[in-house]
């Protein structure tokens, strides 16, 4: 069972310290943890550390370390899960998690910890259930304003109020009764997909994998029912067929336990009565079979002159999104052979940027429109580079240490699986006067988009 729990600031100062089992270690333990963490060699896993017979498990969240210790052989999974739940809980109760919010709400945090953990046994982590027990009010730093325009803008340039939720809304505690009731009626629904792709050097696709989830953050009073309509052609599994087209297919789906699925089979509607706070309504997974072409294709060509040590890399990046969509914050990362000394570049448009950093080439493209093609020519000096044998002086075979290229990007208003939220309807019983704000967003981003060279 859990012996201690503490929260450390990014500098290692204890913000919260709670001992559940009368452990002798005291707060030196927190210091010990920080020292161990800092002194850890790179290849070792920082997930579970131990000192004598005290075991540390921690996560890092918003710059804070949430740490649990135990001296027994218990499940590290449950501790990791618990810590991330605690992070969510503290966020729900105190507003966004951070050094300031924690130190302002020490008493509240302790009260929460007391209800969540008794003698190191987890009791509950449901925001809703805990509401019955928690007395202390959260202290919020500054009143939240929906129209605080300075904080608007989630996707970089995409600052259309109608489509993008103010980002500071998320930093508000869910459960504060002091806040203005008119502000409470907000729902945020995000469809977020992570795309992992591995493309071999001959251009063939080795692996595609989409992990998606539908996340909900609700400020509505608990128990208000909502219905989320998904694309009707949504199919689960390899064999199911719906609609006339190829359908939106995923391999596996799991739902949050509060989701009622009686309309799912017939109309692809999820019905739920979400508690206040955040929850993941649905998770899904899709591999190997994407309905749309991959967002990016990279065509590299490498010229390498061994004699002079000149390495020339020509990269052509094609964006295969539909012409109306665009990708943002694209960054291409290409590890280079050791000892690269200089870089000269020719880029296809002025807003792009390329530089050497940590032995790799970094090529930043703020935005790429669907259907467009960009290119970059990079020349580098690599003195004394070993390379594949038995070939001539000038060769197109890549030298050792070059690649693989990895891309990171965001695709706003685009899901790789094609899944869309058709509608989000709320049924109100109590506060019919207040018109709730509904924010529905779709977003895909890269998880590991790797192209071998």
């Amino acid at each position, binding site marked *: *069972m859990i012996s201690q729990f503490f929260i450390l600031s990014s500098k290692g100062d*204890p913000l*919260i310290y709670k001992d*559940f*089992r*009368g452990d002798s270690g005291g*707060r030196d333990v927190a210091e010990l943890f920080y020292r161990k963490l800092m002194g850890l060699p*790179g*290849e*070792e*896993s*920082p*997930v*579970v550390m131990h000192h004598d*017979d005290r*075991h540390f498990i921690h996560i890092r969240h918003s710059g804070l370390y949430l740490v649990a210790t*135990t*001296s*027994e*052989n*218990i*499940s*590290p*999974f449950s501790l*990791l*899960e*618990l810590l991330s739940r605690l992070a969510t809980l503290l966020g729900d109760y105190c507003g966004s998690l951070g050094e*300031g919010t924690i*130190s*302002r*709400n*020490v*008493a509240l945090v*302790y*009260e929460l910890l*007391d209800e969540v953990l*008794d*003698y190191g*046994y987890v*009791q*509950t*982590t449901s925001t809703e259930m805990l509401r019955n*027990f928690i*007395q202390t009010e959260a202290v919020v*730093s500054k009143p939240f304003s929906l129209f605080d325009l300075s904080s608007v803008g989630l996707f970089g340039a995409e600052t259309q109020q109608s489509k993008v939720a103010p980002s500071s809304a998320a930093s508000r505690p869910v459960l504060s009764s002091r806040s203005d009731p008119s502000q409470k009626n907000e729902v945020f629904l995000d469809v977020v997909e992570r795309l992992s792709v591995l493309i071999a050097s001959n251009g063939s696709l080795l*692996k595609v994998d989409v992990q998606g989830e539908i996340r909900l953050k609700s400020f509505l009073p608990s128990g208000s029912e909502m219905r989320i309509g998904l694309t009707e052609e949504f199919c689960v599994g390899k064999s199911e067929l719906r609609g006339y087209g190829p359908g939106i297919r995923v391999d*596996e789906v*799991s739902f*949050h*336990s509060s989701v009622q699925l009686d309309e799912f089979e017939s109309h692809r509607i999820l019905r739920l009565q979400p508690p206040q706070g955040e929850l993941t309504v649905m998770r899904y*997974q899709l591999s190997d079979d994407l309905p749309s072409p991959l967002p990016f294709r990279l065509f590299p060509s490498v010229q390498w002159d061994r004699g002079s040590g000149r390495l020339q890399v020509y990269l052509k990046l094609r964006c295969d999104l539909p012409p109306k969509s665009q990708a943002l914050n694209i960054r291409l990362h290409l*590890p280079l052979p050791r000892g690269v000394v200089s870089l000269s570049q020719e880029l296809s448009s002025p807003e792009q940027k390329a530089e050497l950093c940590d032995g790799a080439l970094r090529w930043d493209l703020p935005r790429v429109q669907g259907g467009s093609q960009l290119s970059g020519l990079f020349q580098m000096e690599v003195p004394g580079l*070993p*390379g*594949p044998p038995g070939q001539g002086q000038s060769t197109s075979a890549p030298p*050792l*240490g070059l690649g*693989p290229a990895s891309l990171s990007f965001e695709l706003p208003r685009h899901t790789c699986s094609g899944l869309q939220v058709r509608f989000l309807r709320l049924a109100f019983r109590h506060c019919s006067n207040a018109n709730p704000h509904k924010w529905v967003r779709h977003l895909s981003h890269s998880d*590991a988009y*790797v192209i071998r060279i």
Partner: protein
Amino acid sequence: MTDSKYFTTTKKGEIFELKAELNSDKKEKKKEAVKKVIASMTVGKDVSALFPDVVNCMQTDNLELKKLVYLYLMNYAKSQPDMAIMAVNTFVKDCEDPNPLIRALAVRTMGCIRVDKITEYLCEPLRKCLKDEDPYVRKTAAVCVAKLHDINAQLVEDQGFLDTLKDLISDSNPMVVANAVAALSEIAESHPSSNLLDLNPQSINKLLTALNECTEWGQIFILDCLANYTPKDDREAQSICERVTPRLSHANSAVVLSAVKVLMKFMEMLSKDLDYYGTLLKKLAPPLVTLLSAEPELQYVALRNINLIVQKRPEILKHEMKVFFVKYNDPIYVKLEKLDIMIRLASQANIAQVLAELKEYATEVDVDFVRKAVRAIGRCAIKVEQSAERCVSTLLDLIQTKVNYVVQEAIVVIKDIFRKYPNKYESVIATLCENLDSLDEPEARAAMIWIVGEYAERIDNADELLESFLEGFHDESTQVQLQLLTAIVKLFLKKPTETQELVQQVLSLATQDSDNPDLRDRGYIYWRLLSTDPVAAKEVVLAEKPLISEETDLIEPTLLDELICYIGTLASVYHKPPSAFVEGGRGVVHKSLPPRTASNESTESPETAPAGAPSGEQPDVIPSQGDLLGDLLNLDLGPPVSGPPLATSSVQMGAVDLLGGGLDSLIGAPNFVTPPAATAPANLGAPMGSGLSDLFDLTSGVGALSGSYVAPKAVGSISMDLQLTNKALQVMTDFAIQFNRNSFGLAPAAPLQVHAPLSPNQTVELSLPLSTVGSVMKMEPLNNLQVAVKNNIDVFYFSTLYPLHILFVEDGKMDRQVFLATWKDIPNENEAQFQIRDCPLNAEAVSSRLQSSNIFTVAKRTVEGQDMLYQSLKLTNGIWVLAELRIQPGNPSFTLSLKCRAPEVAQHVYQAYETILKN
């Protein structure tokens, strides 16, 4: 105003100020003051001096303030035990408060104050709270017992709290159950011998029920507790597994892993040829794969566990190689783990894919990862013999890159490959020798020297090579020195003429100029061997070496088995048994996997059969509902009825009437009671034809219910007729029915509808529609059906045999060509021949009668005066049966030949023919 000002530095007199505020009579001010005290406490300031003042604030009806004060008390009571006594009265009073939140708060806090004097006062309130009406208080009290036990174990035993805690396992609230289980598990761990958590089928059943209802965290406690249970046979293991399996799709990965642990452990008891075993294997893979989409920390823990699982049961994940491919942005510790698992999963089938990946990895930038990848290629060569050649050439390619650490790593693994496949790949030695100069790591140097020594006779300049190493002998590490010594001795034994000088040199270096005792000893041994008996020396030094195998990197099996019991715990992350890292006596009970029991060999007595788990029953055992049951079980067999309805022909002939008649005749038959000798399957030997008339009269131990059950019959769709008679003195309500899994997946298509309560001696007749979409398990005999009927009084079990022809479907007519091809295609050993005697019908009549039961005549032929009918039929589960019926005019005996891909149905199909034709 924000609380952040609580953190301002301590000024002189701050304590004094706080004191004043604490004693203020304004509630708000007091509350703020206590908050400040707590904030100071958190940052490590000593505010114990305020103890009396804070305790004074305890007497309040403000819950928020009370909580704050309690928080303070928990922290400082230990350092001020005498003062803590002051708080006791309030605690005791609060334990009686009408507000359950306050009662729970008081008992929780008291348990956390680890002061001996307080514990005495804790007993009475705790006893009350354990029996509190509010579940929130009870669950808090349950944990408090564990706290008290930690402080004073003797007291807990003397006060009888353990028994109360055991009672809480059957509490109605799942949260209370979960906490009681957690507390008991922990207490039990400190007393390994005590039988605190007395797990038996009944209590397991209770836990399994609570499992479905409690929170995710409670589920973890319960699953961990289940994992400690050893089922008494494979049936029980299977039924527990079935109920645990749904947890695999839980969103909380800790629940998933705990469920995996239970399944992995109980699987050990299941026979591998069981269908269920295969199903379970398939079910385990997806949740494990899903775990890999979590954050890197969870991934790492998952991978460590998967590493164990893969070693124990590689078949679970053998098709999932791709998910272990390393992602570019994985943290290094995840990468290394994935690599390890990839090698464990490597097999001849996927080795090409694996090697291609490994080669890619070997060209990445991260040095540690590259090294490990190169090593992995070597391990693949050792593991999959067919791939060795490919691996070696891949390694050679890598050596050609001349990247220093890649070359060294490659040489180390090539040495291992030589040890596994001696005299096979010496051709590469030349390439290796080219890279001699670049080797600067001891391990690589030692490996190279070993190779030179081992193959000295094939390397022309072996003496020069070794001599070059000898120059800096004293600067080498011990590993290299030892290897060099041995290699030169080997060389000398192989080429004695040219190397005498060299060997003398190394021997003197090792024996005279070295401080290392190992080196000296080895040097002397060689010296004496060589000087006394060179032949013996040759035998010793050049002896055949045992081949290495891939098992060298596997976890030792007994340890592995122990670790499997600890899946999902820290032990599985460290890959060490808990005794190696957990202090003292806690948790060091050695666990081992349950032994595999042979299926069907267990002699179950009805008394020990788990109640309420009909799926685990022997077909002929009626589980006990009380001690009397075995004796009072009455089996009532209806006489073989001569004119009962032809269930099969009913499809077209008005089933209702016929059945009505059938039921009448059944009901009319006297219910004679056979003597109580009862577990024999009374209808096993009964002819199939009497399937409909088999009639059970079940009476439970209290003589509660008598039901007559009529076997299912066909009315286009399948249904089952039941006749329930209440033979008890009590009114019966709330009927429900359930089938055990059976060969054809028969299951009730609708709930059992008994509308009015059944009063004593009343009889009700019902028809229950059936579907064939239930779960499937092969039964013995094939057409056996186990049924449980539940009502407000008890659960009643019986089993019955149904005639197979109810399962013949209407689209069972096969095309002639297909028939012919299929008939030829099915091997002859699947053909079964039967005689149907005393059937006076002619071929047409037979054909039409069979057709009405969905046995279709595909073709008819007359050969030498005999009529040959070729017929086909299909079962609900898609099995085709092909038949040839030979009828000789004038002879009432027919010959029936059946061919089917599933020969076990033949006997039952024959019986169906008999039934259809004879009636």
